[in-house]
């Protein structure tokens, strides 16, 4: 009997130990899955899968970068000598154009003659660049060569300034505007929320009577409890028209609107943590300051706020963390234009909003899908850094204790 009990104890202990590891395991799995999918992006050719780019064999250009391809098909780069070839106006040719050059009869049954005709077209024009499906590539035509396709590079992703994941022939995965957009609106959200939040924290910890606290504290808790999609909805139907009218803008879905909503959402975090820090100021310090003849406000300003500065720092950092990761509200009010922000009053797009808006349409396993996972990995790294630095800051506060 006693032995049985001992064995049970041991089994339960083992079970609990295993259980304790679940959160660590979850983080490990999140890292593995996010990064595995995300880093797969760099194994993709810069031209869409199943397609090739062909030029005339007489053309001395051997390879093109993803950005050069996009510029050519956007009619931005118009001469071969701009990208290292012999002078000559580039003639971009998309596969569909073949159907306006030849009738269905000429292309043969089941398009069996299509590769041959494509070969003829490419052979005719030394300046052509054709974007065609691999299966219709004219195998036996010596006048046609395939451009060596490069894989998507790190620099395309992190240095690229355009996010056009569905454009053909070469989708652009420039993450720069998204990162900038995310930081841009988070920063302004904190700039709005910080004075407000710290002010309310001072009020709560120093001035408010017990009765006022009993109203204000639950109100802040409720503010924290409202789901982000409701904030987004409120922003969409109230703040968006309001911002548009007030600042006389063509659209109300701007970075500023997003910052406003994020500021409201970050307020509870900032207030709670900052108030906690202020309440921890030792009574002796307060009284010493008052005894020296300082007014209450001078005490707050010169003693309490400096004393709780690391707590306020932690509040700022965690508030930024909340703002950077916020998805639904931002998605609904910022207009989602993937451009490098130049003003507060233009549409903007963030990393989480991009993931939420595009993952549903990206084919599983494709380059677009993987690029969204890479965005998730970046977001993960940013929030990890934030959470660890917040921990570091608050630990410093504890060890500083007077």
């Amino acid at each position: 009997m006693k032995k049985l009990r001992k064995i049970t104890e041991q089994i339960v202990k083992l079970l609990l130990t295993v259980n304790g590891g679940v959160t660590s395991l979850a983080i490990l799995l999140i890292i593995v899955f996010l990064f595995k999918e995300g880093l797969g992006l760099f194994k993709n050719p810069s031209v869409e899968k199943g397609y090739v780019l062909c030029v005339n064999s007489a053309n001395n250009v051997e390879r093109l970068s993803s950005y050069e391809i996009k510029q050519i098909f956007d009619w931005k780069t118009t001469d071969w000598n701009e990208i290292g070839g012999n002078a000559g106006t580039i003639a971009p040719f998309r596969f569909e154009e073949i159907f306006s050059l030849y009738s269905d009869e000429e292309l043969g049954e089941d398009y069996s003659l299509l590769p041959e005709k494509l070969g003829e077209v490419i052979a005719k024009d030394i300046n052509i660049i054709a974007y065609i499906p691999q299966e219709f590539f004219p195998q036996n035509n010596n006048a046609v060569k395939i451009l060596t396709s490069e894989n998507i590079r790190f620099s395309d992703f992190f240095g690229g300034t355009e996010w056009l994941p569905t454009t053909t022939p070469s989708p652009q995965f420039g993450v720069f505007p998204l990162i900038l957009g995310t930081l841009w609106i988070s920063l302004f959200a904190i700039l709005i929320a910080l004075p407000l939040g710290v002010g309310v924290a001072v009020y709560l910890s120093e001035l408010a009577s017990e009765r006022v606290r009993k109203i204000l504290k639950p109100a802040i808790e409720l503010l924290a409890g409202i789901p982000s999609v409701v904030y987004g909805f409120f922003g969409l139907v109230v703040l968006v028209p309001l911002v548009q009218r007030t600042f006389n803008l063509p659209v109300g879905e701007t970075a500023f609107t997003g910052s406003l909503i994020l500021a409201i959402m970050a307020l509870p975090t900032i207030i709670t943590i900052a108030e906690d820090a202020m309440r921890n100021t030792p009574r002796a310090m307060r009284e010493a300051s008052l005894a020296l003849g300082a007014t209450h406000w001078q005490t707050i300003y010169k003693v309490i706020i400096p004393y709780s500065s690391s707590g306020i720092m932690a509040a700022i950092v965690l508030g930024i963390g909340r703002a950077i990761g916020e998805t639904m509200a931002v998605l609904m009010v910022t207009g989602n234009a993937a451009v490098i922000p130049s003003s507060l009053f233009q549409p903007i797009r963030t990393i989480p909003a991009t993931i939420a808006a595009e993952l549903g349409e990206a084919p599983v396993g494709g380059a677009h899908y993987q690029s969204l996972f890479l965005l998730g990995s970046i977001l993960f790294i940013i929030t990890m850094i934030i959470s660890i630095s917040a921990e570091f800051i608050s630990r410093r506060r504890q060890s500083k204790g007077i």
Partner: protein
Amino acid sequence: MHKRIKQKIVFIVLRLLGILIVGILLWILGFIVYNGAEVINWTFLTTAPTEGMTAGGIFPAIVGTFCLITGSVVFAFPIGVLSAIYMNEYAGNTWIAKFIRIMTNNLGSIPSIVFGLFGMALFVNTLGFGDSIIAGSCTLGLLVLPVIIRTTEEALKSIPDTYRTGSLALGATKLQTIWRVILPMAFPNIITGLILSIGRVSGETAPILFTVAAYFLPKLPDSIFDQVMALPYHLYVIATSGTDIEASRPIAYGTALVLIIVVLLINLLATFLRKYFAKKVKMN
């Protein structure tokens, strides 16, 4: 004299800031209650959406959210409570406990959209659950796991060590102590944590976007491998991409109100329980 006036002005500003916070809350709540109240009636709550979601009710979304709450609690509650027991009762202050605590905090700080991505990669694609209640519940469960662990740990920590040593001195084993003494005492606070996590689950949108939520699905789920509609996702859909956004606005207000009522009621319940049990403990 000068500094007194300065102080007065500053304090007035601070007081106004306090009022502003309450004002913002009342503005948001008032706006949604005012617009949503006339939409909500019995039919709205018990029928499916009709005519391209410009009419009818939100019954399937309510049922879906209920399924997700149940699923994620079944998944996360036992794991969370057991983890907390391990950390507080067994691991103590060793490096393992510290490590787990840091990991739990980190898990809690990961943005919800990242959980959505992860849920899609692991549960939907790798494990092959497809878009289903089980995939969504697991994703949401992971999301609230840190909440449950943290509140349970707080609950366990608040029990004085004298109870533990007392029970052990009477000859009870460690397991008996936990089961008969510690857990019954911590129970109210653990339940409060559970309720808070339910509030969180019912309002989350980003994690369910790609793991379970259906755009429009008037029938109710038959098994845990079915897709469902959910309140927050439904609100997002009809607010941004319905067939006729203007016509479905009233439905959106109604949905937002129902969602807010659910979440706030859950939060109030948690606050009430916390106070109620606190009083009871004091009386003992």
